[in-house]
Protein backbone atom coordinates (compact mmCIF):
# COMPACT_ATOMS: atom_id res chain seq x y z
CA UNK A 1 0.00 0.00 0.00
CA UNK A 2 1.33 3.39 -0.97
CA UNK A 3 1.65 6.19 1.51
CA UNK A 4 1.17 9.87 0.73
CA UNK A 5 4.89 10.52 0.27
CA UNK A 6 5.15 7.69 -2.25
CA UNK A 7 2.17 9.00 -4.22
CA UNK A 8 3.94 12.35 -4.34
CA UNK A 9 6.87 10.67 -6.10
CA UNK A 10 4.61 9.72 -9.00
CA UNK A 11 2.87 13.10 -9.05
CA UNK A 12 6.22 14.90 -9.28
CA UNK A 13 7.45 12.44 -11.91
CA UNK A 14 4.36 13.04 -14.02
CA UNK A 15 4.63 16.83 -13.82
CA UNK A 16 8.33 16.63 -14.68
CA UNK A 17 7.67 14.39 -17.68
CA UNK A 18 5.16 16.68 -19.35
CA UNK A 19 7.08 19.87 -18.74
CA UNK A 20 10.38 18.44 -19.96
CA UNK A 21 9.31 16.15 -22.81
CA UNK A 22 6.55 18.26 -24.35
CA UNK A 23 7.43 21.77 -23.22
CA UNK A 24 3.89 22.23 -21.94
CA UNK A 25 3.16 21.82 -18.23
CA UNK A 26 0.45 19.53 -16.94
CA UNK A 27 -1.69 20.12 -13.91
CA UNK A 28 -2.36 17.24 -11.58
CA UNK A 29 -5.63 16.81 -9.73
CA UNK A 30 -6.04 15.28 -6.30
CA UNK A 31 -5.11 11.57 -6.32
CA UNK A 32 -7.93 9.30 -5.23
CA UNK A 33 -8.30 5.69 -4.17
CA UNK A 34 -9.91 3.06 -6.36
CA UNK A 35 -10.54 -0.33 -4.76
CA UNK A 36 -10.68 -3.76 -6.46
CA UNK A 37 -11.58 -2.76 -9.98
CA UNK A 38 -9.99 -1.57 -13.16
CA UNK A 39 -9.48 2.01 -12.14
CA UNK A 40 -9.58 4.04 -15.32
CA UNK A 41 -8.83 3.06 -18.89
CA UNK A 42 -8.90 5.39 -21.85
CA UNK A 43 -8.03 4.70 -25.52
CA UNK A 44 -4.53 3.41 -24.74
CA UNK A 45 -2.63 2.31 -21.68
CA UNK A 46 1.06 1.64 -21.16
CA UNK A 47 1.37 -0.84 -18.31
CA UNK A 48 4.58 -1.39 -16.32
CA UNK A 49 4.84 -4.43 -14.05
CA UNK A 50 6.65 -3.81 -10.76
CA UNK A 51 8.65 -6.46 -8.92
CA UNK A 52 11.50 -6.61 -6.45
CA UNK A 53 10.95 -4.78 -3.18
CA UNK A 54 7.40 -3.88 -4.29
CA UNK A 55 4.81 -5.79 -6.35
CA UNK A 56 2.15 -4.37 -8.59
CA UNK A 57 1.81 -2.18 -11.62
CA UNK A 58 1.93 1.39 -12.78
CA UNK A 59 0.11 2.50 -15.87
CA UNK A 60 -0.46 5.63 -17.88
CA UNK A 61 -3.68 5.85 -19.86
CA UNK A 62 -4.69 8.59 -22.28
CA UNK A 63 -6.96 9.36 -25.22
CA UNK A 64 -5.52 9.02 -28.70
CA UNK A 65 -5.91 12.73 -29.44
CA UNK A 66 -3.74 13.65 -26.49
CA UNK A 67 -1.02 11.20 -27.50
CA UNK A 68 -1.04 12.56 -31.05
CA UNK A 69 -0.64 16.14 -29.81
CA UNK A 70 2.11 15.06 -27.43
CA UNK A 71 3.99 13.56 -30.38
CA UNK A 72 3.59 16.81 -32.30
CA UNK A 73 4.93 18.78 -29.32
CA UNK A 74 7.95 16.48 -29.39
CA UNK A 75 8.44 17.43 -33.07
CA UNK A 76 7.41 13.95 -34.20
CA UNK A 77 5.72 14.10 -37.60
CA UNK A 78 4.54 10.49 -37.63
CA UNK A 79 1.48 10.33 -35.39
CA UNK A 80 0.38 6.93 -36.64
CA UNK A 81 -0.76 3.95 -34.60
CA UNK A 82 2.72 2.55 -33.97
CA UNK A 83 4.08 5.76 -32.51
CA UNK A 84 0.96 6.44 -30.46
CA UNK A 85 1.28 3.01 -28.85
CA UNK A 86 5.01 3.48 -28.43
CA UNK A 87 4.56 6.83 -26.69
CA UNK A 88 2.01 5.62 -24.15
CA UNK A 89 4.50 2.93 -23.13
CA UNK A 90 7.40 5.36 -23.00
CA UNK A 91 5.49 7.72 -20.70
CA UNK A 92 4.69 4.84 -18.32
CA UNK A 93 8.28 3.63 -18.48
CA UNK A 94 9.70 7.07 -17.75
CA UNK A 95 7.43 7.85 -14.81
CA UNK A 96 8.07 4.39 -13.31
CA UNK A 97 11.81 4.53 -13.91
CA UNK A 98 12.11 7.99 -12.39
CA UNK A 99 10.40 6.65 -9.25
CA UNK A 100 13.55 4.61 -8.55
CA UNK A 101 15.14 7.86 -7.42
CA UNK A 102 13.02 7.46 -4.28
CA UNK A 103 12.21 3.72 -4.26
CA UNK A 104 15.75 2.53 -5.02
CA UNK A 105 17.15 0.07 -7.54
CA UNK A 106 15.17 -2.87 -6.13
CA UNK A 107 12.04 -1.23 -7.48
CA UNK A 108 12.26 -3.31 -10.65
CA UNK A 109 10.27 -2.20 -13.68
CA UNK A 110 9.27 -4.33 -16.68
CA UNK A 111 9.26 -3.24 -20.26
CA UNK A 112 5.84 -1.75 -21.11
CA UNK A 113 2.82 -3.73 -22.21
CA UNK A 114 0.62 -1.65 -24.49
CA UNK A 115 -3.13 -2.00 -24.38
CA UNK A 116 -5.81 -0.43 -26.53
CA UNK A 117 -9.49 -0.03 -25.80
CA UNK A 118 -10.27 -3.63 -26.77
CA UNK A 119 -8.11 -5.21 -24.08
CA UNK A 120 -7.16 -2.34 -21.79
CA UNK A 121 -9.69 -3.14 -19.09
CA UNK A 122 -8.28 -6.64 -18.60
CA UNK A 123 -4.63 -5.75 -18.90
CA UNK A 124 -4.81 -2.76 -16.61
CA UNK A 125 -7.05 -4.43 -14.02
CA UNK A 126 -5.67 -4.17 -10.53
CA UNK A 127 -6.36 -6.02 -7.35
CA UNK A 128 -6.35 -4.18 -4.08
CA UNK A 129 -6.09 -0.45 -3.76
CA UNK A 130 -4.97 1.74 -6.61
CA UNK A 131 -4.19 5.41 -6.52
CA UNK A 132 -5.47 7.28 -9.55
CA UNK A 133 -3.58 10.48 -10.38
CA UNK A 134 -5.65 12.69 -12.71
CA UNK A 135 -3.67 14.69 -15.27
CA UNK A 136 -4.86 17.67 -17.26
CA UNK A 137 -2.66 18.64 -20.16
CA UNK A 138 -3.76 21.31 -22.62
CA UNK A 139 -7.39 20.39 -23.27
CA UNK A 140 -6.97 16.70 -22.47
CA UNK A 141 -7.44 14.49 -19.43
CA UNK A 142 -5.36 11.38 -18.70
CA UNK A 143 -4.45 9.29 -15.67
CA UNK A 144 -1.49 7.66 -14.01
CA UNK A 145 -2.62 4.67 -11.96
CA UNK A 146 -0.37 3.20 -9.28
CA UNK A 147 -1.17 -0.11 -7.61
CA UNK A 148 1.62 -1.31 -5.32
CA UNK A 149 1.54 -3.83 -2.48
Amino acid at each position, binding site marked *: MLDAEEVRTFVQGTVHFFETATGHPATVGSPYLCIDKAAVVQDYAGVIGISGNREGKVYFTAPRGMLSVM*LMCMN*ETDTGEQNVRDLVGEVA*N*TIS*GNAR*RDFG*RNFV*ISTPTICDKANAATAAATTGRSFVIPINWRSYAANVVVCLQ
Partner: protein
Amino acid sequence: MMIVDDSNVMRRRIERSQQNDRLEVVGTAVNGLDAVTKFKQLMPDVMTLDLTMPEMDGIECVEHVIKIKPDVLILVVSALADKATTVEAIEKGANGFLCKPFTDDQLNEALAELIGE
Protein backbone atom coordinates in the same frame (compact mmCIF):
# COMPACT_ATOMS: atom_id res chain seq x y z
CA MET B 1 26.88 7.15 -33.68
CA MET B 2 24.42 4.37 -32.93
CA ILE B 3 21.10 4.88 -31.11
CA VAL B 4 19.81 1.97 -29.04
CA ASP B 5 16.32 2.16 -27.56
CA ASP B 6 13.27 -0.10 -27.70
CA SER B 7 11.08 2.97 -28.27
CA ASN B 8 10.79 4.11 -31.88
CA VAL B 9 9.64 7.54 -30.67
CA MET B 10 12.78 7.87 -28.56
CA ARG B 11 15.13 6.68 -31.32
CA ARG B 12 13.65 9.20 -33.73
CA ARG B 13 13.71 11.93 -31.08
CA ILE B 14 17.42 11.46 -30.40
CA GLU B 15 18.25 11.29 -34.12
CA ARG B 16 16.21 14.41 -34.85
CA SER B 17 17.45 16.41 -31.88
CA GLN B 18 21.17 15.76 -31.94
CA GLN B 19 22.85 18.68 -33.70
CA ASN B 20 26.53 18.02 -33.19
CA ASP B 21 28.45 18.44 -36.46
CA ARG B 22 30.93 15.79 -35.39
CA LEU B 23 28.25 13.14 -35.00
CA GLU B 24 26.33 11.24 -37.66
CA VAL B 25 23.80 8.52 -36.94
CA VAL B 26 24.98 5.38 -38.71
CA GLY B 27 22.50 2.94 -37.24
CA THR B 28 19.80 2.22 -34.70
CA ALA B 29 18.91 -0.87 -32.67
CA VAL B 30 15.78 -1.91 -30.79
CA ASN B 31 17.36 -3.88 -27.91
CA GLY B 32 20.72 -4.95 -26.57
CA LEU B 33 20.96 -8.07 -28.70
CA ASP B 34 20.18 -6.15 -31.88
CA ALA B 35 22.71 -3.52 -30.80
CA VAL B 36 25.56 -6.01 -30.35
CA THR B 37 24.87 -7.54 -33.77
CA LYS B 38 24.79 -4.17 -35.52
CA PHE B 39 27.70 -2.83 -33.49
CA LYS B 40 29.98 -5.52 -34.92
CA GLN B 41 29.06 -4.42 -38.45
CA LEU B 42 29.04 -0.65 -37.97
CA MET B 43 31.71 -0.21 -35.26
CA PRO B 44 30.41 3.23 -34.21
CA ASP B 45 32.57 5.55 -32.10
CA VAL B 46 29.60 6.75 -30.03
CA MET B 47 26.47 5.02 -28.75
CA THR B 48 23.37 6.22 -26.91
CA LEU B 49 21.94 3.35 -24.92
CA ASP B 50 18.66 2.75 -23.12
CA LEU B 51 18.80 0.36 -20.16
CA THR B 52 15.33 -1.20 -19.85
CA MET B 53 14.90 -3.22 -23.04
CA PRO B 54 13.66 -6.71 -23.96
CA GLU B 55 15.98 -9.53 -25.13
CA MET B 56 19.12 -7.95 -23.65
CA ASP B 57 19.18 -4.94 -21.33
CA GLY B 58 21.53 -2.00 -21.59
CA ILE B 59 23.91 -3.01 -18.80
CA GLU B 60 24.62 -6.36 -20.47
CA CYS B 61 24.95 -4.62 -23.81
CA VAL B 62 27.65 -2.32 -22.38
CA GLU B 63 29.66 -5.35 -21.29
CA HIS B 64 29.51 -6.82 -24.81
CA VAL B 65 30.34 -3.71 -26.83
CA ILE B 66 33.21 -2.71 -24.54
CA LYS B 67 34.84 -6.06 -25.32
CA ILE B 68 34.41 -5.47 -29.05
CA LYS B 69 35.63 -1.86 -29.02
CA PRO B 70 37.07 -0.70 -25.68
CA ASP B 71 37.27 2.98 -26.66
CA VAL B 72 33.61 3.32 -27.71
CA LEU B 73 31.92 6.29 -25.99
CA ILE B 74 28.60 5.29 -24.43
CA LEU B 75 25.93 7.71 -23.22
CA VAL B 76 23.29 5.86 -21.24
CA VAL B 77 19.88 7.48 -21.84
CA SER B 78 17.47 5.96 -19.37
CA ALA B 79 14.53 6.68 -17.09
CA LEU B 80 16.14 4.69 -14.28
CA ALA B 81 16.96 7.56 -11.98
CA ASP B 82 18.54 5.87 -8.96
CA LYS B 83 22.20 6.50 -8.26
CA ALA B 84 23.07 2.81 -7.99
CA THR B 85 22.05 2.18 -11.60
CA THR B 86 24.07 5.16 -12.80
CA VAL B 87 27.11 3.94 -10.90
CA GLU B 88 26.72 0.40 -12.23
CA ALA B 89 26.50 1.63 -15.84
CA ILE B 90 29.62 3.76 -15.40
CA GLU B 91 31.48 0.90 -13.70
CA LYS B 92 30.63 -1.42 -16.61
CA GLY B 93 32.13 1.05 -19.06
CA ALA B 94 29.58 3.71 -19.92
CA ASN B 95 30.95 7.26 -20.11
CA GLY B 96 27.90 9.36 -19.34
CA PHE B 97 24.32 9.21 -18.12
CA LEU B 98 21.32 11.26 -19.29
CA CYS B 99 18.08 10.74 -17.42
CA LYS B 100 14.78 10.66 -19.32
CA PRO B 101 12.85 12.84 -19.83
CA PHE B 102 15.29 15.32 -21.35
CA THR B 103 15.20 18.47 -23.44
CA ASP B 104 17.00 18.87 -26.76
CA ASP B 105 19.54 21.13 -25.06
CA GLN B 106 20.23 18.56 -22.35
CA LEU B 107 20.79 15.86 -24.99
CA ASN B 108 23.18 18.01 -26.99
CA GLU B 109 25.08 19.09 -23.87
CA ALA B 110 25.45 15.46 -22.80
CA LEU B 111 26.68 14.42 -26.25
CA ALA B 112 29.13 17.33 -26.41
CA GLU B 113 30.51 16.41 -23.00
CA LEU B 114 30.74 12.77 -24.07
CA ILE B 115 32.97 13.57 -27.04
CA GLY B 116 35.04 16.06 -25.07
CA GLU B 117 33.82 19.38 -26.43
